[in-house]
């Protein structure tokens, strides 16, 4: 957690704004996002589809194709050295794969169908660590063993279509971790997998994370995965961070109505009494023309006049727990949160 003795900052994202140019104008996918990440830490970014979490993550590796996307504002400082947003493509190539690795959502499409597994793992090793083919092949076998694949010597000669989805995601993890990166970005790593396989992959990632002390950004909309892995959580809505804090803050003392909505829409087995799942009504705003006020106001049961007029600043609950909601303003009426301490739901 962030109260470690001498935490090394791996990543510092400041006021990041990313937009896409389209025929009808500019889609503001990320609208001023700031967060940081320390060595050995797991930060979860949660939110609905289209809230900008994947764009944020892929922008850190500069993987969003440009055009149509462009970084409008902000900085991403990696490893206290360079601002990612200003690096040349060549300098980025050196960082990608060696200092940052990425796991994608769908393991069925993330591997090249016409190249053997072994070659796909070895590629990064050859590029970044200057290994020759034999050394890289040896390392690939080690990596496969590390991610829990049996008979790795045989597997490296196989093609992706010969493996199951769970195995392919293990291979993706092996590729991402091959060069021992300082930062691993996992973009919905379990979404496309069966539930039982999901648990295995989470377990594997936890185990590897303890072993390697890699910092992880975990993008997901699955709060169960968050509770399992992350120490800190960032909740995104319509391209902005609406709430951030430790896992305990978010699960036991959430402050933003959107976070309440998210928590209510997740099935939980640990609750004392059964509660119905409550979906959040409505849909997120169109990011062509984001609303003047709070983006969530249109769907928020507690919305006030101010919410429609002015976007709230971040209010500090504690020094690491912040939420952007007018309800935290001293003038606002007191609202009893529908989800509360100990995860109990007041229905």
């Amino acid at each position, binding site marked *: 957690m962030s109260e470690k003795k001498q935490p090394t900052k791996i990543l510092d994202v400041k006021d990041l704004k990313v937009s896409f140019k389209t025929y009808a104008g500019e889609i503001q996918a990320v609208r001023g996002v700031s967060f940081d990440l320390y060595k050995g830490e797991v930060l979860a970014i949660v939110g609905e589809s289209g809230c900008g979490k994947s764009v944020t993550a892929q922008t850190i590796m500069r993987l969003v194709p440009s055009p149509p996307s462009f970084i409008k504002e902000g900085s991403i400082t990696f490893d206290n050295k360079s601002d990612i947003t200003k690096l040349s*493509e060549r300098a980025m190539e050196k960082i990608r794969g060696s200092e940052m690795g*990425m796991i994608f959502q769908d393991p069925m499409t993330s591997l090249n169908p016409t190249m053997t597994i072994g070659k796909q793992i070895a590629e990064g090793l050859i590029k970044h660590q200057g290994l020759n083919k034999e050394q890289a092949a040896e390392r690939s076998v080690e990596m496969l063993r590390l991610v829990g694949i049996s008979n790795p010597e045989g597997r490296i000669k196989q*093609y992706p279509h010969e493996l199951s989805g769970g195995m392919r995601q293990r291979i993706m993890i092996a590729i991402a971790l091959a060069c021992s990166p300082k930062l691993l970005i996992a973009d919905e790593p379990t979404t496309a997998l069966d539930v039982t396989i999901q648990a295995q992959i989470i377990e594997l990632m936890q185990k590897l994370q303890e072993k390697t002390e890699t910092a992880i950004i975990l993008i997901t909309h699955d709060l169960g995965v968050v509770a399992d892995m992350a120490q800190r959580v960032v909740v995104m809505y319509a391209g902005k961070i609406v709430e951030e804090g430790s896992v305990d803050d978010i699960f036991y003392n959430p402050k933003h109505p959107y976070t309440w909505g998210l928590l209510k829409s997740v099935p939980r087995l640990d609750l004392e009494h059964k509660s119905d799942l409550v979906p959040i009504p409505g849909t997120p705003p169109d990011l062509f023309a984001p609303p003047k006020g709070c983006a969530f106001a249109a769907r928020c049961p507690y919305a006030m006049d101010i919410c429609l007029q002015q976007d709230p600043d971040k209010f500090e609950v504690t020094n690491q727990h912040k939420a952007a909601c007018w309800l935290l303003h001293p003038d606002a009426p007191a609202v009893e949160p529908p989800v509360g301490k100990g995860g109990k739901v007041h229905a």
Partner: protein
Amino acid sequence: MLKFVIRRLISMIITLFLITTVTFFLMMNLPGDPFGEMSQKMSAAQRAVLYQQYGLDKPMFQQYLQYMGNVLKGDLGVSFQYPNTSVNEKIAQSFPASLELGLWALLIAVVIGLLLGIIAALNHNRGLDYAAMFTAVVGVSIPSMVLGPLLSYYVGVKLGWFPPGLWDTPKHRVLPAIALGFSTVAILARLMRTSMLDVLNQDYIKTAKAKGLSQTSTVIKHTIRNAILPVITVLGPIFVNVITGTLIVEQIFSVPGLGKHFVQSIQTKDITMIGGLTIFYSAILVVVIFLTDILYGLVDPRIRLAKGRK
């Protein structure tokens, strides 16, 4: 894979059998006398001898069996017009020129077409893309029957850069090969571009980039390799196009190839020649398509390693 090969092989044999059968009956039922004007100058006795010589006096079914038997042995019969020339001789004599012409055209088309497609896709929606694709669409709109005469006259006669016709030296190959390959360049360029764009949108390209591979090695190792696969499947039909195109291009440039003879035999209604050459051409085309299918299977591990059906 083996099952795949066998299935394709069987359908190839059926196709060839059907083509030969259809060709035979169409030939035999052609209106008019098979010997044309020649026949009118002959006496009834002479004609009978001639009919007997060609086996035309026997019942149709027997003729059919005999013809099929001969075709199986590789004998395509004797010309009705020139009783001294067999179809096989004609093929042996003039097919090499046609084949060479076709291969040159194919080579030009594949090399330039793929390059154009790759360049266009890598510059998607930018100037080079529009330029390459406009060139390609213009290319499709200028078929060899148009381009051939234009090249022969303007480049061959007026500018004098290359011989406007005939087939003697390497220089003679240039204009016919360009005329024949040009529209194929366009087809391949468009296909390769689409296929490249498709692959560039795949997740595994993002994976490759996330590994830190450079643009160049992502393109060469991951994109082109995969993008070329669907292009291989059309090489068969493309070859068919090129070979049928020789019928026209050989006319225009007076290339002494088989296509020219085919057209001549059509114009003189030399029935056995037409039938024999149709079967010969069909066989080549069907075999080439079969081979490209197999090639595709070999290149794509998803098919190569598939066990069981499809």
